[in-house]
């Protein structure tokens, strides 16, 4: 067909990001200023401006994406969350305390448990709604994505899959994460085409087990270390010089806690996202995500350096960095028929991702 857009025939990636931080800086700084002087109210509009910029500099094949969302939608989403989550939070802040004060500890914890379940359900719902909102406001060639599912069932799925994943000593968590990813994406569409999430969790287990076993190994190592160096345990006498083993112990433990554990978590997450995105397709398009652990490591290191060296101001560039990272490593192969890519018939949600915002959720 004459309208087919083949990909990767000229060696170019399907996705490309052409923004520069110099272009983005005026947006970032005016957003910061306006957000401060409006005591945060401008934040919704600021998010919209940032996304307009990022999306418009993101090319898919022959045409940039377009962000269609508005600040008003995000504000409405925020207000809805305020009304829905406000009373439970107020209860947790004041009511629970009052109950404990009066000696109804069991009742307080019972209600606390229900509140916890509600929060878990809402977290699942939030991650679904966030994806749905973002797809519904992402336009390409005048066509948008979306979902006809409102995510109510996904909220339950989120609870039981996480429960099953955690029950056998957390060993099924990779399965829970992947199956939830698939379920979420299988409810989404772009134009007339449904996304298909067919990722499998099997490939994740090697890394997961390293990550999972490390704390146990650490405990064993921490106990064994003094023996290795000293040969025998000596009680530390006040005033005496601490032994080398003890010094080593106090260096190794924080080092592992603050460096090695997050690093392995990063390695796992990097693999997770590759597996998850590689299992994703839309009609004849197959997606791929190519960021490896070392890329993630550089991203995180860059983030930390940026924020610290600028005494925090650099944080306004994080959204930009993360989006660039995401697009730079996203690829797609296959062919897309423009005439068959017709307008989405899904309902466009009128409010933004307030719920995900309230739970401080990341994009992917």
């Amino acid at each position, binding site marked *: 067909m004459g309208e087919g857009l083949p990909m990767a025939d000229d060696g170019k990636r399907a996705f490309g990001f052409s923004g520069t931080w110099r272009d983005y800086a005026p947006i970032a700084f005016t957003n910061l200023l306006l957000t401060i002087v409006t005591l945060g109210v401008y934040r919704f509009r600021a998010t919209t401006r940032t996304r307009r910029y990022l999306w418009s500099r993101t090319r898919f094949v022959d045409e*940039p994406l377009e962000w269609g969302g508005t600040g008003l939608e995000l504000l409405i989403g925020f207000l809805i969350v305020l009304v829905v*989550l406000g009373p439970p939070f107020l209860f947790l802040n004041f009511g629970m305390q009052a109950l404990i004060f009066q000696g109804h500890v069991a009742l307080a914890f019972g209600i606390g448990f229900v509140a916890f379940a509600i929060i878990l359900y809402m977290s699942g719902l939030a991650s679904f709604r966030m994806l749905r909102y973002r797809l519904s406001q992402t336009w390409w060639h005048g066509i948008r994505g979306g979902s006809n599912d409102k995510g109510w069932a996904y909220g339950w799925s989120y609870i039981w899959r996480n429960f099953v994943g955690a029950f056998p000593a957390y060993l099924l968590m990779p399965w829970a994460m992947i199956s939830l990813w698939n379920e979420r994406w299988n409810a989404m569409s772009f134009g007339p085409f449904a996304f298909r999430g067919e990722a499998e969790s099997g490939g994740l287990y090697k890394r997961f087990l390293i990550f999972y076993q490390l704390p146990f190994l650490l405990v064993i190592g921490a106990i064994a270390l003094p023996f290795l160096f000293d040969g025998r345990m000596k009680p530390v006498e006040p005033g005496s010089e601490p032994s080398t083993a003890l010094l080593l112990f106090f260096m190794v433990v924080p080092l592992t806690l603050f460096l090695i554990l997050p690093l392995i978590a990063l390695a796992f997450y990097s693999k997770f996202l590759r597996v998850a995105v590689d299992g994703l397709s839309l009609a004849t398009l197959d997606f791929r995500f190519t960021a490896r652990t070392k890329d993630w490591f550089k991203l995180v290191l860059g983030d930390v350096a940026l924020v610290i060296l600028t005494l925090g101001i650099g944080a306004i560039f994080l959204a930009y960095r993360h989006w660039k990272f995401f697009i730079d490593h996203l690829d797609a192969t296959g062919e897309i028929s423009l005439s068959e890519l017709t307008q989405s018939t899904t309902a466009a949600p009128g409010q933004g991702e307030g719920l995900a915002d309230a739970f401080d959720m990341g994009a992917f």
Partner: protein
Amino acid sequence: MTSIGPDEGIWHFDGISATRHHPRLDWTADGFALVLEEGTSGLHPWSDLVPLGGTGGRSIYGLRGVNGWRLAFAGPPPAPFAVHLPLPARYGRWIDRLGLWWALGLFAGLAALVVLIALRAPAWIAPHVPIAWEQKLGDAMVGDLGGRLCETPGSRAAIEKLRRQLGADVPIRQIGIANVPMINAVAMPGGRILLFDGLIREAKSPDEIAGVLAHEIGHVRNRDTMTALVRQLGLSVLLGGFDGNVGGAINGLLAMSYSREAERAADLYSIGAIRAAGISPLPTAVFFDKLGKLSGGERAERAMSWMASHPVSAERKAAFEQSAVKGKRYVPSLSAAEWRAVVNACREDPDVKKAGPIFGF
């Protein structure tokens, strides 16, 4: 009628399919039309055209009422076409109209006003909350403290004597001794005061307790608890659960703090009350000294005094010391027997719940 195109630099998506069209544009003063191979779309009035911002050097327009409809130019639109077009919004409509710097100034002024009001509002609102509400609130929040209130006939009489001396005209509903091992005393909403058993055991004489109790009575008289409650309520609505940190939400009645002015006012009341009752302020001064040492010494306190809500213990000690009149004969606030009854209230009350930290304390 004026025309332009078709041209590679002018394209159109109809919002129905993803196919890219290169239309010819025809326009008059009233509106414009897109002439495509499939037929003509229009005449659309100029006012239906919506400029889209942030498009990276390209000029893109939407059409009111048709989702996904786009008309795009590779650069700026041709001048004769452009004269009919509105400008895209940049920072937002209101800000664009004012200009960025004017808007920044205006918003900063408004923000300062809002912050000022928000800081002052609790103190303005609190006196207008009906006492009956406050009492109900206090009952709901504290109740009987899970059976941890200690009382014997002797302690009741002794506490009543203290109340008559220190706050006869203050609407106090209850002064209770709580079986909690903490060196603290709190004023609760609804005119209720709790003296913790740990505080009483730490005190060497009834006069130390009298100073602390009079301070809490000062809070009740000034309705400081209500002010703090209104402030905490406002803060938890504004910040509490919505910063993405559910667990870190402002916690607890003990986290509820009074302003430094409120603390000073309560100290002033305390000094005045014990003077009027003929009780010596010196034991209370000694007691504050002791509290200061418990909280890490004067230097640590001074370092944090900008943030802390209590006046530095050394200052309070000095204030109480200075109020002492040389050569005056002070009377003890309680007799030895009455003081013993207070100290032993928690041991002698047969049905008090056993001591232990209340969860959340």
